[in-house]
């Protein structure tokens, strides 16, 4: 049973204005990337990548190692200026209005971007302050987010004492401190146990249901199949496919029989990349 595209049923909140600032455009797209390109020396890491992310969807960005996923996310999140092209998030250009974009996004990087010698709560409050929250707001949002990721009882413990799964959950909780409209999750489930992974899935789905748009990268195909409303596949710096998991599977056979991994291998080949 294919998932229904959330853009067909946009969640309407009192006072929401479609097509206004910080809202999806007339096509429902919250993020519009057009002609993105980035080179590092002679290596073309991202080559003319264009796609849209619909408001309140979980958009999967898949690809083998070195496909250009992380470079793309770094450009989308204003960290890396593109050599060509631009991205609009909530109607704001990441190259011309990065400060505006920062108010809309939350980034959960692939590595654990935490201060291990400090407590989970201290980490969250600090990044909350950097996200523009007042001291008291940062504390209350930190408490909410720690509850969301199931770490309320470990709030005062140093992060260095946490398991890998707990650190991953703190990593996500930090990304949520800015109360973002668009959340970037770059391989948030690497190296963690099934329980933590399942908790993260449930958290992401809950956030989507509450109205958040999510860009999700992963190497786990069953994870992408379970979570993502639409999936884009990158290889060699280019976007080679973009569709719903159901349609991608249907493109090579019976969607009930075909796995997303088979689609992925068919699209990107079986040769080793590292």
């Amino acid at each position, binding site marked *: 049973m294919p998932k229904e595209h959330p853009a067909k049923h946009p969640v309407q909140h009192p006072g929401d204005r479609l097509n206004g600032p910080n809202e999806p455009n007339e096509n429902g797209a919250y993020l519009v990337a057009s002609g993105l390109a980035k080179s590092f020396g002679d290596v073309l890491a991202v080559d003319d990548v264009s796609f849209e992310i619909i408001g309140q969807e979980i958009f999967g960005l898949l690809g083998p190692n070195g496909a250009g996923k992380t470079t793309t996310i770094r450009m989308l999140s204003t*960290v890396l200026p593109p050599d060509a092209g631009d991205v609009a998030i909530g109607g704001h250009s990441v190259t011309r209005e990065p400060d505006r974009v920062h108010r809309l996004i939350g*980034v959960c*990087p692939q590595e*654990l971007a935490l*201060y291990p010698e400090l407590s989970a709560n201290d980490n969250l409050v600090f990044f909350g302050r*950097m996200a523009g929250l007042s001291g008291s707001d940062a504390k209350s949002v930190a408490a909410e987010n720690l509850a969301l990721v199931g770490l309320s009882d470990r709030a005062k413990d140093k992060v260095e004492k946490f398991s890998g799964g707990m650190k991953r959950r703190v990593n996500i909780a930090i990304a949520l401190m*800015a109360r973002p409209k668009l959340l970037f999750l770059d391989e948030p489930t690497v190296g963690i146990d099934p329980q933590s992974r399942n908790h993260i899935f449930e958290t992401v789905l809950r956030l989507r249901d509450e109205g958040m748009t999510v860009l999700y990268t992963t190497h786990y195909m069953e994870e992408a199949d379970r979570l993502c409303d639409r999936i884009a596949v990158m290889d060699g710096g280019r976007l080679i496919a973009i569709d719903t998991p159901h349609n991608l599977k249907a493109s090579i056979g019976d969607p009930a029989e075909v796995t997303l991994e088979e689609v992925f291998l068919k699209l990107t080949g079986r040769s080793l990349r590292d």
Partner: protein
Amino acid sequence: MTRPLSIAIFELRRYLADRGELAFGIALPIALFALMYGTFSGEPTFNGTTHIVDLDGGAVTGEILQRLDAIDGLTVELLSDDDATAKLDRSAILTAVVFPAGFSEAVVAGEPAKVVTRQRGNGGNAGQIAVSIVRGVTDAVASEAAARVAVAGALDGAVAQGRIDATLAGLLSASQERPLVTVTSRQLGGDGGDDFVDRLMPGILVMFLTFAVTLGSQSMVEDRRLGTLERLLTTRLTLGQMFIGKFLAGLFRAMFQALVLLSLGFAALQVAGASEYFQVIAYCLLIAGAVAAIGLAIGSLATSRDQAVWAGVVITMFMTVFGGTFFPVDGALDVLSRFTLNRYAIDALDSIISGGESLPSQWLEATVMVGVALVALAIARWGFRATSR
């Protein structure tokens, strides 16, 4: 301004949470200073024991014993005649000074009095020195007593004895406070007699403040390594705010160090007054600013933790060794020292603490610190852009 301040406070908390850094930045300088202070200063030039046999028990002997007891480095051990003899016999002690019965009475009466020194062999070096000290004190006390007797005799009852005693006591006290002849010691070599400790405290303080260069340089590199720098750049924090925050963080760390070390130094050693203390703190703010900016510049240019640490250590060691931290520099070293923060910082602190000079008179040294801070901040900003591409 609240975000840079938040960064600075956050980094200070990280610093305080790191026991290793605290031990290095606070405990080590205190231990080092205590060690050097104990080695080079504060200790009396002589440490010894004088063994006294008091067969007299009179007021004059009591006065002599009191004065001996007050001498720094000299311990007075009272022995019975038999004990002293037994100890001398078995060489447990090498000298003993005997105040015979009737000694005080004889001195007060203005009659000849004797003190007997017993010694084993030549009495040993320490024993001879101790006996000399006893002899000197005894002479002084006996002379004072003789003076009293002489004055009383000259006045022949015209003035009450109590008044004579009080007047003489006042005169003696005054002469002790303002002696006609004073003897001062000057250390040969160095810069002609500057107190070593006066320079030691600023030297060690500045040395550990400049060590903060290495710590500051790692802050930026560590944020890069952890991924927190990139994460910070996706928040509402601007690049300028981040730089100010990191600069303030280095400044706060160095000032925390300076405050603790200076407060302890001023309180324990009473090297100078409150005015000097606050002027030194104000100048330390400038040193901390320069040090924080250099650390930030290194951290912005370095692409790895090793690079940052090595650059920090090389720069710090150069400034420490050639900046006159432990000894005044001259000749070719003097030229090299002009390229160090330590030279200007130590000169300024030394002048304020022990030279009686004020902070405004150290304008050149202050300008150097501000100039270094501004140049290093500009390099940091440029370096960050260059290494982030």
